[in-house]
């Protein structure tokens, strides 16, 4: 049996993500206050830059963090005790989301660092200055976290984890399908189904399948588009 495990990221790096998510709303509101200070135009511009960088960082940080925590959670107990096709499919989707959200996260942290460093000396508004000084204390940890996350993403990319997950998924799906073929080929196979699916026709099941994938947060690629002649477009 092959065991697939999601790589770990240190608590410090995760703390850095939490710090960004935590301080960003405070900084956004403070920077907004400062950006209205008409008597300090350079500071207002710097504060506006900081506001923009934090506003843009928050969803990127959250996207990465949610996917990372999801992947870590899924890869723990069920996979330690034996691979399971459903868990691996969820792990695959979460891993792809981590990989996809990584560059956005790193760019956002860089942008925060730059904006915060530029803004700090100029901030006129006392409340903004206070928060910016607070951020200055957090910045080294955030930047170390950024470097660690960058290294983690490189390691994840080089590890071939997604390919490994796919290899195991293919093998598990083959085995499940072979067992299914054996069952339906046996004389007297009973086409019974669970209570909650009784009476559902083909179209209702198609709708349930779609809802099932959406509920699991799995990607739902769209069907190809066709022209009026029925030829596939693109």
């Amino acid at each position, binding site marked *: 049996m092959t065991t697939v495990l999601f790589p770990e990221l240190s608590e410090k790096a995760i703390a850095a993500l939490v710090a960004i998510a935590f301080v960003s709303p405070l900084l956004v509101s403070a920077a907004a206050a400062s950006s209205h200070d008409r008597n300090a135009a350079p500071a207002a511009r710097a504060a506006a830059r900081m506001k923009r960088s934090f506003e843009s960082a928050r969803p990127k940080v959250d996207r990465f963090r949610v996917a990372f925590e999801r992947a870590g959670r899924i890869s723990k107990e069920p996979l330690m005790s034996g691979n399971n096709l459903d868990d691996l499919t969820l792990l695959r*989707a979460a891993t792809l989301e981590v990989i996809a959200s990584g560059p956005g996260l790193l760019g956002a942290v860089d942008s925060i660092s730059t904006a915060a460093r530029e803004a700090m000396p100029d901030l006129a508004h006392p409340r903004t200055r206070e928060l910016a000084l607070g951020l200055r204390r957090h910045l080294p940890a955030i930047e170390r976290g950024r470097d660690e996350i960058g290294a983690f993403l490189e390691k994840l990319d080089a590890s071939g984890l997604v390919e490994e997950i796919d290899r195991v998924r293919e093998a598990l799906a083959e085995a*499940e*399908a072979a067992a299914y*073929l054996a069952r339906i080929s046996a004389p007297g196979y009973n086409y019974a189904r669970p209570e909650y699916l009784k009476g559902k026709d083909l*179209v209702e099941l198609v*709708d349930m*399948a779609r809802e099932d994938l959406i509920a699991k947060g799995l990607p739902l690629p769209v*069907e190809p588009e066709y022209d009026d002649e*029925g030829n596939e477009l693109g």
Partner: protein
Amino acid sequence: MGDAWIVTVDTSVFEAALARSRPGSPAREVLARARLVHFTPACSPMLQAEIFRRLRLAGLDLDIVEATLNELAALALHVDVADHSDVVVRDVGDRFVVALAIVSKSWCIVSQDKDLTERPPESRPPGLSPPKFLHRLREKRGESPDSRVS
């Protein structure tokens, strides 16, 4: 009426309908029309097992996959194709689909796979994309070209 119109619906159509399609998509309508017995899907254990494999890989719940295949089995003409090694196809993985279509005397193969829909023109039965199949089915049934079933 539908019993005379046997059609081999490829695994890709099931995958598109269950794991990819938007409401009102052609693949979904193909299955909706099978349910209304506008045609009879041909079915073999190999086809069922391959649909099972692909839907499970797409992440679908085991119960839903099995229930879907039960529904297909209830609607279908069952054909067991013992040997399909002599069937000529571009992708050997499609052999069992074409063999099923030949043995079941299917009118056509409905597929989203270009290896099946872009076979040489003399190939029998022909491979049709879901929209092309629906167009031909509407014609055969004397329906308006705009009619939709969901």
